């Protein structure tokens, strides 16, 4: 048998074509040496994103972290489309950490499909092109006479066929193509058709392994008691009773960290099982130094917001025209408030770490693993190259795992014991010590003249995330989005600004709503203005949207495009479907709200129909959501995201609230921080705009219009809630 040599070329080919600016190579698992006979080749891996074996089975390495959003299906679909393989022969695997470009594992901002679309199409097309070239070589014909077709290459002259699997070893010997041609989206067979989640069977049989399911030889289990006040310190711990609990191995303490994660000082019980650790923890006698900022509260925070709302905003955000011209004339003003919120992922935070003198191995879910590893290297004193991270499935994330306080803790604990340790946050800890969506407050003021809206002022008061991650004094304020040039309504005179207020509670990024805090006040206030002008809320919105062209703002690399027409489009879709212009049944009311999540090129609207049962009691009869997110990869995944987004949004509208007293969070579990229950879920219909625009992201756009649409319906019924959650206004629902 002829032994062809595989040289470096046949390993991962470092090509800008295949992998963008991939800086380092990595070993192909399965190929043992640099030079092995081609007959021993097991698979062909032209780039970091995929491999195909001799049976024609394709593995797609998914760079983005799966937490239920469906990247493990949507991203492989993109590869499979360009590769021309049957999706049943495609499986997805978590891309091993370090095999992707810097930043490519990062998962957030609804960016996964958007940022991977081009690379994955390219990756699939490279594989296909090389498989086709391998077939052409065998047939000794020009590649022009060969075409890929569903996992095979066809000789278009004599109609012979070769399966991809039979071509992999030959394809591995070929040079990477300099260029590849991508399919015309019109010819897509897979993209745009609903596909079920690729790991569904593992989930349904209990085999799927989330971070909390990791089990290693000799592994120990830890839970921790954390300082109740952020940035406090440990004074002393008496663990005499705790140490006597059978199964307890060691009790260790660790210090807090300050920014960026504000890991709290803690005492961890390490035991042979979780139960022993939990019992022993309850017996710890700990004295903390809470520091000076231990008397802060949300009561005072909201009073401070209100007191400052009438002053000039500390930071100007967006100005157009001159709002002062109209001061005091036909003026309408309203204040809106939204509380701190927790992510409440169903899988509580957890992380596994195994520490040696000069190295670390880690297991768990992280949405920003590069940042986490860099920070862990600093905190642990272990060189980054000596940290091995194994990423796992996440039982929900919603932004909670963009933060990695729990990972730093696990490392601090593991460094004090000679076995691997799994740190689990109990649910109480998970709600008590989250990275809360900032509490925020808004004063909106507008003037009308001649039946028209002529000026708009928006003062946002908030508790910035950046004060936590970067320190007070940061100028990065996420909460100004949509009150900046992205504000979608066409008003001739606009002035918006932001006033940061600090409080000693950790803050973080939460699905959609940390950068969409302005949807609620804007979409409620626009309804209030329509009412004051005696205009229909839908017509009024459309009059401020429909004549406005798309526009681009911001600076490279964050150029954003706002499309008022697409906002108007989804709004009309939702309104039409719910029968907005039909005569309403008695006691039925419809509320609308719309917005853009322009970071992910997505636009959505909700229409919610309620029936008032009693003056302060309602039921949601119908919900219609409409979305325009460009080309849809997996329609089934899109529906999931819009349904899940609605559940998230309705939880916040009805009952989500974290309150603070003495610098402590007052909710410590699902009983204090309630989520939507099955019997509270109304029927929802989801409409998707047909679009050939580049794909956007759908994880977050369907959240923040829920509360304003509901409040607008309640306002139509008689009483407008301006503070979330609406149960605070005395509403109940069935």
């Amino acid at each position: 048998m002829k032994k062809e040599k595989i040289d470096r070329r046949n390993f991962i080919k470092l090509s800008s074509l295949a992998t963008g600016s991939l800086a380092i190579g990595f070993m192909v698992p399965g190929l043992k040496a640099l030079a092995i006979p081609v007959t021993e080749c097991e698979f062909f891996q032209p780039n970091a994103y995929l491999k195909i074996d001799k049976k024609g089975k394709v593995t797609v390495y998914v760079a983005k972290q799966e937490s239920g959003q469906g990247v493990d299906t949507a991203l492989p679909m993109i590869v499979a489309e360009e590769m021309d393989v049957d999706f049943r022969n495609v499986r997805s695997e978590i891309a091993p950490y370090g095999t992707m470009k810097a930043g490519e594992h990062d998962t957030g901002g609804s960016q996964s499909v958007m940022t991977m679309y081009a690379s994955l199409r390219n990756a699939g097309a490279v594989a296909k092109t090389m498989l086709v070239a391998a077939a052409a070589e065998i047939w000794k014909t020009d590649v022009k006479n060969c075409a890929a077709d569903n996992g095979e290459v066809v000789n278009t002259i004599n109609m012979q066929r070769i399966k991809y699997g039979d071509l992999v070893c030959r394809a591995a010997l070929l040079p990477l193509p300099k260029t590849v041609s991508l399919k015309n989206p019109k010819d897509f067979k897979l993209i745009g058709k609903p596909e079920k989640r690729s790991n569904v069977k593992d989930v349904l049989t209990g085999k799927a392994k989330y971070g909390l399911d990791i089990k290693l030889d000799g592994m120990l289990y830890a839970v921790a008691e954390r300082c109740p006040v952020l940035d406090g310190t440990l004074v002393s711990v008496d663990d005499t009773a705790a140490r006597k609990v059978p199964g307890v191995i060691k009790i260790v303490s660790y210090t807090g960290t300050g920014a960026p994660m504000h890991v709290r000082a803690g005492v961890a019980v390490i035991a042979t099982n979780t139960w022993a650790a939990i019992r022993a923890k309850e017996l710890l006698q700990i004295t903390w130094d809470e520091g000076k900022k231990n008397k802060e509260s949300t009561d005072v925070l909201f009073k401070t917001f209100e007191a400052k709302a009438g002053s000039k905003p500390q930071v100007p955000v967006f100005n157009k025209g001159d709002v002062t011209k109209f001061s005091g004339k036909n003026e309408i003003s309203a204040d809106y408030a939204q509380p701190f919120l927790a992510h409440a992922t169903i899988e509580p935070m957890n992380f596994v770490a195994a520490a040696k003198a000069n190295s670390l191995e880690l297991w768990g879910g992280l949405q920003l693993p590069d940042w986490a590893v860099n920070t862990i290297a600093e905190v642990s004193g272990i060189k980054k190259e000596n940290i091995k991270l194994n990423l796992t499935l996440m039982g929900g994330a919603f932004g909670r795992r963009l933060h990695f306080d729990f990972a730093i803790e696990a490392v601090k604990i593991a460094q004090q014991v000679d076995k691997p340790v799994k740190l689990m946050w109990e649910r109480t800890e998970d709600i008590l010590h989250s990275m809360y969506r900032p509490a925020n407050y808004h004063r909106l003021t507008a003037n009308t003249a001649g039946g028209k809206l002529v000026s708009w002022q928006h003062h946002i008061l908030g508790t910035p995330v950046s004060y936590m991650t970067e320190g007070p004094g940061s100028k990065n304020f996420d909460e100004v989005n949509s009150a900046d040039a992205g504000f979608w309504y066409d008003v001739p005179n606009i002035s918006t600004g932001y006033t940061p207020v600090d409080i000693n509670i950790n803050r973080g990024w939460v699905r959609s709503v940390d950068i969409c805090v302005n949807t609620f006040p804007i979409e409620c206030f626009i309804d209030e203005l329509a009412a004051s002008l005696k205009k229909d809320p839908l017509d009024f919105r459309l009059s401020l949207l429909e004549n406005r062209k798309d526009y681009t703002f911001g600076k490279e690399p964050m150029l954003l495009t706002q499309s008022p027409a697409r906002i108007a489009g989804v709004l009309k879709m939702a309104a039409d479907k719910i029968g907005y212009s039909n005569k309403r049944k008695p006691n039925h009311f419809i509320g609308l709200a719309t917005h853009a999540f322009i970071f992910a090129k997505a636009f959505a609207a909700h229409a919610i129909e309620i029936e008032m049962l009693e003056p302060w009691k309602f039921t949601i009869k119908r919900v219609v959501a409409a979305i325009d997110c460009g080309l849809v990869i997996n329609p089934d995944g899109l529906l999931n995201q819009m349904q899940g987004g609605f559940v998230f949004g309705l939880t916040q509208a009805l009952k989500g609230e974290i309150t603070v007293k003495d610098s402590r969070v007052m909710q410590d579990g699902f009983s204090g921080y309630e989520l939507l229950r099955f019997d509270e879920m109304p029927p929802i219909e989801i409409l998707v705009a047909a679009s050939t625009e580049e794909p956007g992201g759908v994880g977050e756009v369907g959240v923040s219009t829920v509360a304003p649409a509901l409040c607008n319906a309640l306002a139509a019924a008689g009483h407008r809630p301006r503070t979330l959650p609406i149960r605070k206004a005395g509403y109940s629902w069935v």
Partner: protein
Amino acid sequence: MPAYSLNINNKNYTVEADAEMPLLWVLRDLLDLTGTKYGCGVASCGACTVIIDDNAVFACRRTVGNCVNKKIITIEGLSEDGSHPVQKAWQQAAVPQCGYCQPGQMMSAAALLIKNKRPSEPRDQ
């Protein structure tokens, strides 16, 4: 520590554990049956649901001492190969997103079907 013999998924296991240890941790930490999930530990989420003697039970609230001489079924034992009607229905409807709570959801649906072969309302508990 006392030893308990347990019948889980039609297999017999012996575990040494504190009598008060919840079944949840016996399953997860001592027996590596991690399909049963922890969500709250206080009977408020249902992620830990298993079937004991034909009843849906929160494993986080059932002590190991109270599991002896009972037939315990976990998600791993619902079927050999994912072919239980509930698993098939879940697959058909593509239910899971993150999927973490689904073993618990399916176990409560499976327990319902033991009691009521033809439940009429989807919201019946």
